[in-house]
C-alpha cells in the first residue's frame, strides 16, 4: 500500500525536500552510495575530536582534588553512559517511524543501532566499575548510574535477542522495533525509580561525575568527547546499515551489479 501512496504523491513529494529526502532514503542503492560517501567524513571527525578531547582530558586537565587521577575515567565513562541512553532513544524513535510508515531503511537503522548502543553500555559498565575500585574500594556498588546501565544492557540484549530469534527479517525488525519503543517508554521510569531506590537505601554519595564543582578545564574535554562519540555512532551505524542492506538485497540487481563492479 505504501509504495502506491508514494508513487501517487510523487508530484507533491518533489515540492517538499524533506519528503523527497525520506523518499530517496527508501531507495537502497541511493542510501548505500550516500552513506558510503558520508562514512569517511564521520570517521575523520570522530578521530580528530577524540584525539583533541583525550589530549586535553588526559594530559592537560589537572587532577581532581577529591578523586585524584581516577576522575580521568570520566571522559570515557560519562560520554559512553550518555550515548547508551541516547542510542536507545534514537533506536526507539527510528523504530516508531519504521512501524508507522513501514520504512525498511528505518527498520535497518533501528536494528543496527542496538549493538552499538550495547557496546557503549558495556563500556559505561566496565569503566564505572574500574572507577569504583580506587574510589569505593570495590568493583561493583549498586550505585544509581551503574544499576540503570545494567538494566539498560538487559533491554538492549532483549532487543538484539528478539531480532535474532525471528527468522523473517522484516517481521523480526518490526517486533524488535516495538520492543524498543516499549523499553523507551519504560526507560525514564526505570531510571528514576533506580535513582530513587538508591537514595532510599543510602547508596554511595560520590558518583563518577563528582559532587565537586567541575573546573572548565575539566568540562571542555568531556563535552568534546561527548560530541566525538556521536560521530562514532553515526559512522558505525551507517557502516552496519550498508552491510545489512547488501545482505538483505543480495538477490537484487543493484547488489549484483555493485559486486561485479567491485570485482573488476
Amino acid at each position: 500500500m505504501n509504495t502506491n501512496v508514494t508513487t501517487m504523491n510523487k508530484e507533491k513529494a518533489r515540492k517538499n525536500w524533506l519528503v523527497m529526502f525520506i523518499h530517496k532514503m527508501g531507495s537502497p542503492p541511493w542510501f548505500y552510495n550516500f552513506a558510503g560517501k558520508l562514512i569517511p567524513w564521520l570517521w575523520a571527525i570522530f578521530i580528530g575530536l577524540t584525539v583533541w578531547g583525550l589530549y586535553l582530558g588526559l594530559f592537560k586537565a589537572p587532577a581532581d582534588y577529591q578523586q585524584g587521577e581516577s576522575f580521568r575515567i570520566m571522559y570515557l565513562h560519562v560520554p559512553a553512559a550518555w550515548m547508551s541512553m541516547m542510542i536507545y532513544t534514537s533506536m526507539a524513535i527510528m523504530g516508531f517511524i519504521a512501524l508507522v510508515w513501514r520504512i525498511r531503511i528505518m527498520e535497518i537503522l533501528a536494528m543496527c543501532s542496538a549493538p552499538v548502543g550495547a557496546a557503549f553500555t558495556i563500556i559505561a559498565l566496565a569503566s564505572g566499575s574500574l572507577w569504583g575500585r580506587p574510589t569505593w574500594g570495590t568493583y561493583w556498588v549498586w550505585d544509581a548510574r551503574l544499576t540503570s546501565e545494567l538494566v539498560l544492557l538487559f533491554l538492549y540484549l532483549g532487543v538484539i535477542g528478539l531480532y535474532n530469534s525471528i527468522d523473517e527479517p522484516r517481521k523480526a525488525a518490526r517486533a524488535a522495533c516495538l520492543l524498543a519503543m516499549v523499553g523507551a517508554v519504560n526507560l525514564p521510569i526505570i531510571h528514576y525509580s533506580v535513582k530513587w531506590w538508591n537514595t532510599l537505601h543510602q547508596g554511595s554519595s560520590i558518583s563518577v561525575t563528582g559532587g565537586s564543582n567541575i573546573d572548565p578545564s575539566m568540562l571542555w574535554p568531556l563535552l568534546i568527547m561527548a560530541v566525538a562519540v556521536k560521530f562514532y555512532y553515526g559512522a558505525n551505524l551507517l557502516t552496519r546499515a550498508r552491510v545489512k542492506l547488501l545482505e538483505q538485497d543480495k538477490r537484487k540487481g543493484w547488489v549484483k551489479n555493485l559486486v561485479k563492479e567491485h570485482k573488476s
Partner: protein
Amino acid sequence: MLSVSKINFERYFEPVFEPVSFELKAGQLLLVTGTNGCGKTTLIRVLADILHPTSGDFVERTDSMGYVGHYLGIKDDLSVIENLRFMRDFLGTSNRSCEEVIRQVGLGRVSEQLARTLSAGQRKRCALARLLLSNTSLWLLDEPYSNLDQEGVDLVDEMLTDHLEAGGACVLATHGNHRPEWADAQDYRLISGAAA
C-alpha cells in the same frame, strides 16, 4: 465486495507470488488455483487482513469476512457446541441457532463431545459450522475440501451455492481435483514469485 490491485507480499525479500489484481462482486466465486507453494495460503491471509501486503492496494474490501484456514480455530478443551456458542456470543450473530448449523454440517451426534476427540474431517465441519454461524458476506476458504469425505465435499458445495445465491461472495483456494459448480466463477491461476 472485494477489489484488489497489484497486491504483492514479500517474504525474505522475495515476492511470494506475482502481483494479484481482481475484482469480486456479490454472487461471484473466485477460484484460486496453483501448484503447491505458489502462495495460495499467503494470498488468502493477505486478503483476510492477517498479513499486510508489501505493495498494492485494496480498492474495496468488505469488513464482513469469514475465514477457514489450515488452523481451524477450534478449542480442543471445549465441546463442539461450546465452541460455536462462544463464537456466536463473541461475534454477536443471532440469525441462526448453534444447534441448527451443527445439524446442517452433520455433527449432531457429536455436538456434546470435546473437540479434541474429533477426527480431522469432523473438525473441518465444525469450522464450517462456525462459518455459517458468522453470517459474513465474503468467505475466504483455504483448501476447504481437504480432509473431507464425499459427503463433506458435497456439504461445502451446497453451502457455497446457498451463500452465493444469497448475494455473498467467496474466494476459494484449492490445488485442484474438485471444483464447485457455479456459473459466475472466475479462475485465478496464482503464479509463484520465484518463477519470475
